C-alpha cells in the first residue's frame, strides 16, 4: 500500500497548528516580554509576553535528533542543503520518501513545503521547488528528507510547561494530524490530560493511564505509553518548555518490541528554555539566527529585548511592564510606537548607548521616548548612556526623556549639563508621551516632500 501524500506529510491540519513558542520574545529576559507576534507581516512575528519563558524553537529535524537521542522512535531521515544532497539522501533512504522544508513556521504543508516523492525525478522536482521557497516570509535553506511512512492512525502527544498548575502536563489524543486547538474546542474529552509531579517524575502508570483514557488501539498501548515516557525525558533532560508530536503515527511494524505495528513521531516541535542554555552548550548552537529580524538580532546580541512595531515613535524603557504600559500611553496620546525595547534591569550606560543605536537603525523612527523608572536601574547611568550615544551617533530626531527613581536627580543634572540638542526632559510619563507624539507629528510635517 502506498502512503497517501497528505497523510505521509502529517496532514495540513497538523501543520496549521504552527509553532507554539515563537521565536522571539526571549529577553534573555523572561521579564522583558510584551505580547507576542503578528508584527511581522509574514506571521510568526515577534511579540512580547511577560512571564513567558524566553524560548528557543527548534526546527523539525533538530527536534527529531533530540528525540532520537532519548529513544523516541522517529522515521529515518537525512538533512540536505542542496538538490544534490537531497537526491543522495533520497537514494539512500529509498522511495517513496518525503521532502520537508525546514522553517520555524506552521502551514508548511499548505504552502507546498512538504511533498511525497515516489521516485528520483519527483525527488529532484520537489527539492528544486522547495529549496529557496518563501513560506510566509521565511526562506527555506534546509530540507529534511525522510522515509515515507504508512499511516494506520494519527495521534497527538505533548508535554507542556503548565504555568497554572506549576507542573508538566502530558496530553494525548487519538485525533492527531489536525489542529489540536480545534479538537480541544470541539471535543475537550478527546484529549486525555495528566499532570506529572516534577519532584516524582514520569512513572510507567502515567503512560498506561493516558493511553487507555485516550483510547489508543490496544496493540500499541504499551508503545504509546513508553513514547510518552521518552518525551517526558526529552522535556526534562533538555529543559524544554514544550515537546509536541503531531502526528504521532501508528504504522506497519515490526516495532522495536516485536509487535506487528509500530509507533513513530512523524513531526517534532520542541521549544527550549533560553535561560537554561548555559547547561546545554550543544543545544545553544541550534539557534536559527537566519530566521530572526536583523534589528531584533542586533538587539539580542546586545542583551536587549526589542520588538519592531509599525509606528514611528521609538520607545525605550526599563522593565517589560513599564515598557508595555508606555506603548499603551503613547497610543492613548494618539501616537504609534515603532518598537518595544526593554533595556532591562540594572541597565548600564553602554546598554543604553546600544539601545539608542538599535532604535535608530529603524529608518521610520521620527522621535524617541525614554521612559525610565529606576529601581535596580540607576538614572545617572541612563543619562550617561544617552550622552555617550549622542557623542557616537549624533541622532537627528528629537528625544523626550522621563527619568524617575534611583539616582534620578543626578541623571537629570547630567542631562541638563550636557545640554544635548533636541532632547526634552519631561516630569511625568503622561507628559512625556504627549510631548513625543507632538514632536513626531511635527517631524512628519517638516520632512521634505521631494
Amino acid at each position, binding site marked *: 500500500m502506498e502512503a497517501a501524500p497528505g497523510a505521509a506529510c502529517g496532514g495540513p491540519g497538523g501543520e496549521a497548528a504552527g509553532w507554539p513558542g515563537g521565536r522571539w520574545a526571549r529577553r534573555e529576559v523572561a521579564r522583558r*516580554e510584551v505580547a507576542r507576534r503578528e508584527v511581522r507581516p509574514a506571521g510568526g512575528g515577534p511579540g512580547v509576553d511577560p512571564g513567558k519563558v524566553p524560548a528557543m524553537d527548534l526546527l523539525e529535524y533538530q527536534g527529531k535528533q533530540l528525540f532520537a537521542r532519548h529513544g523516541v522512535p522517529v522515521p529515518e531521515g537525512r538533512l540536505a542543503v542542496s538538490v544534490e544532497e537531497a537526491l543522495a539522501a533520497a537514494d539512500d533512504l529509498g522511495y517513496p520518501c518525503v521532502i520537508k522544508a525546514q522553517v520555524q513556521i506552521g502551514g508548511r504543508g499548505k504552502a507546498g513545503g512538504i511533498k511525497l516523492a515516489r521516485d528520483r525525478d519527483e525527488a529532484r522536482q520537489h527539492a528544486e521547488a522547495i529549496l529557496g521557497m518563501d513560506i510566509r516570509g521565511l526562506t527555506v535553506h534546509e530540507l529534511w528528507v525522510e522515509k515515507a511512512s504508512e499511516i494506520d492512525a494519527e495521534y497527538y502527544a505533548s508535554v507542556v510547561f503548565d504555568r497554572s498548575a506549576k507542573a508538566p502536563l502530558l496530553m494525548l489524543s487519538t485525533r492527531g494530524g489536525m489542529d489540536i486547538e480545534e479538537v480541544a474546542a470541539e471535543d475537550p474529552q478527546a484529549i486525555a490530560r495528566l499532570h506529572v509531579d516534577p519532584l516524582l517524575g514520569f512513572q510507567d502508570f502515567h503512560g498506561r493511564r493516558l493511553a487507555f483514557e485516550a483510547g489508543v488501539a490496544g496493540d500499541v498501548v504499551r508503545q504509546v505509553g513508553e513514547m510518552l515516557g521518552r518525551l517526558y525525558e526529552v522535556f526534562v533532560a533538555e529543559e524544554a518548555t514544550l515537546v509536541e508530536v503531531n502526528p504521532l503515527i501508528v504504522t506497519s511494524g515490526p516495532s522495536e518490541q516485536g509487535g506487528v505495528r509500530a509507533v513513530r513521531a512523524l513531526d517534532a516541535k520542541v521549544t527550549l528554555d533560553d535561560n537554561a542554555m548555559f547547561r546545554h552548550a550543544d543545544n545553544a548552537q541550534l539557534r536559527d539566527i537566519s530566521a530572526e529580524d536583523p534589528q531584533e538580532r542586533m538587539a539580542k546580541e546586545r542583551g536587549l529585548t526589542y520588538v519592531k512595531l509599525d509606528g514611528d515613535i521609538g520607545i525605550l524603557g526599563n522593565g517589560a511592564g513599564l515598557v508595555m504600559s508606555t506603548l499603551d500611553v503613547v497610543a492613548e496620546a494618539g501616537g504609534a510606537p515603532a518598537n518595544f525595547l526593554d533595556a532591562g534591569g540594572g541597565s548600564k550606560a553602554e546598554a543604553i548607548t546600544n539601545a539608542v543605536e538599535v532604535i535608530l537603525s529603524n529608518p521610520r523612527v521620527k522621535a524617541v521616548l525614554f521612559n525610565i523608572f529606576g529601581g535596580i536601574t540607576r538614572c545617572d547611568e541612563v543619562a550617561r548612556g544617552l550622552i555617550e550615544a549622542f557623542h557616537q551617533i549624533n541622532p537627528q530626531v528629537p528625544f523626550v526623556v522621563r527619568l524617575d527613581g534611583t539616582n534620578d536627580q543626578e541623571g537629570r543634572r547630567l542631562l541638563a549639563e550636557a545640554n544635548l540638542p533636541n532632547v526634552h526632559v519631561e516630569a511625568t510619563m503622561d507628559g512625556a508621551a504627549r510631548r513625543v507624539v507632538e514632536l513626531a507629528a511635527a517631524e512628519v510635517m517638516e520632512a521634505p516632500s521631494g
Partner: protein
Amino acid sequence: MSILVDGSTRLCVSGITGREGTFHSLRNREYGTNVVGGVTPGKGGQDVDGIPVFNTFAEAVRETGANTAMIFVPPRFAADSILEAEDAGIELIVAITEGIPAHDELRVFNTLRRNGRARLIGPNCPGILSPGKANVGIIPASFFSAGNVGVVSRSGTLTYQIGNVLAQQGFGNSTIVGIGGDPVPGTDFIDVLAMFEADPETELIVMCGEIGGDAEERAADYIAEHVSKPVVGYIAGFTAPPGKTMGHAGAIVSGSQGTARAKAEALERRGVRVGRTPTQVAELAVSLLGNRSAV
C-alpha cells in the same frame, strides 16, 4: 499593619558581597530594614559595612535569627540558594534574580509547596516595601509613604509608576508587593489579595497585571468570591502585538488567550474597575476612596 515585611523582619542577603547585592542591601538598611547578615560561600567572617557575612544560610540563621532572605545571586546559583534558605528555616524568601531556568523554578516551587515551611516571593521581582517599616528588594522607597492602598504587581518598574501616580493623588501604601514576571512565581495574585483582605490597614487594593498566562483571570474569580475591599486593576499590553503566549498547547492549558483585553474584561465582569493608564488607576482610586487619604 502591613503584610509580609515590617519591623520584625530580620533580613539575610544571599549574594551580599556582589556589586548589586551590596548596593541594595545597604539601601534597604538605610531605609530602616533590619539587615542582620549576608551569605556568600567562602567569604564567611567578612563584613559588608558592618553586616556580617556567613558561608551558609544555616550558620546565618543560627547566629542572627534571620527570618527573611533576599536572593541576589546569578541565575545559575539562585535555585540552590532559595532551597538552602528554606532548608535553614527561613520563612520568607524574596528572590530578585531574573533569568532562572524554568525547570529550576518548577523544582523550587514544588519543593517549597510540599514542605510548607517558607513563602517565596518572585523570582524576577522587585521585592516588597512596607513604607515606613521595611524595604526588602530594589523598590525605590523614597517615592512611597505609609497609607491604606495595597499594591500587588507582576512588573517591577510598572509598580513604581503606579505607586508614583497614587502618591501624586495623596495616597500612601500599606505594602507594595512585586510578585515577579516569571512563569512560576512563588506567590501569585491570589495569595497577596488574601493577605491584603486580612490586613486592617489596607482599604483599597491595586492589582497590576500584564498580558500572558491566566493569573489575572484566576484572580478575578477569587476577588468576586473572597475580597470585600475595593480593587482597582491595571493591565499593561493593550497595544502590544496580540500574542499566542505559550502557543497552541499553552492556550489549551490556560483556556485563555492571555491578551490585555481578555484580562481587563475578566476583571470588569467581576466588578473590578480597570484603568487604561496608570493615571486612570489613580483616578479610580480617588473615586473609590475619596481624597481623605490626602488630607
